């Protein structure tokens, strides 16, 4: 069983992480992977910046990863998050879970993403028309979290 948590300050290729991660878990029944990217909903978002506070963000992700592995009886979990300035189309987050059964793998990714999006130590701002704007928490994120009763 392996847990990998990483914070990256430069663009990454999800496939470079998922291939070796999957290969490292012979005997798995299923692997579920989610990759979130900077959306280009419209042309107004020119860039996105994610700030973190290293001494809290990394331990928080490690604790979330350990909790996810225990709750869903995973064989392995990979959790990679970008920080810094990103542009539309760039990956922000990658979560990949290996389990003996598919339900565990899929639910683990769902759980980890809900918690990363709403309870992790990241602060976000968007650049629109040359101006940076801080993003407030979304109500939807809290509703998502309430699904897990934790």
């Amino acid at each position, binding site marked *: 069983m392996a847990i990998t948590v990483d914070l990256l300050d430069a663009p990454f290729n999800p496939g470079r992480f998922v291939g070796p991660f999957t290969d490292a878990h012979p005997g798995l029944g299923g692997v579920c992977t989610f990759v*979130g990217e900077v959306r280009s909903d419209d042309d107004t978002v020119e860039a996105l910046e*994610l*700030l973190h*506070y290293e*001494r*809290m963000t990394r*331990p928080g992700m490690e604790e979330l990863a350990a909790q996810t592995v225990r709750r869903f009886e995973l064989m392995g979990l990979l959790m990679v*998050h970008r920080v810094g300035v990103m542009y539309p189309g760039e990956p*922000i*987050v990658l979560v990949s879970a290996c389990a003996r059964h598919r339900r565990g793998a899929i639910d683990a990714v769902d759980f980890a993403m809900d918690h*990363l*999006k*709403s*309870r*992790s*130590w*990241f*602060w*976000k*701002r968007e650049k629109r028309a040359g101006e940076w704007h*801080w*993003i*407030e*928490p*979304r109500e939807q*994120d809290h509703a998502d979290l309430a699904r897990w009763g934790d």
Partner: protein
Amino acid sequence: MAVTVVFIGKLADLAGEDEREVPAPLTWSGLAGVLGADLAEAAADERTKIAVNGQVLADKTALDAGDGDEVALLPPVSGG
């Protein structure tokens, strides 16, 4: 004899810097005197959390940081 105060996100904008060294000890009641009224008001916002050495205070009015401590003012997280 210093406390490092870390400002995150919009609080860093307000402070005009990412961190500041202030004299120890740093307490809740001393915050306005050390950081100024604007930052103290932002710290008092119910959604702002305070962490000492990476540990969030359950009751931020109990803040009492000493020499070498790192105090972080944390606005609401906006998600990854």
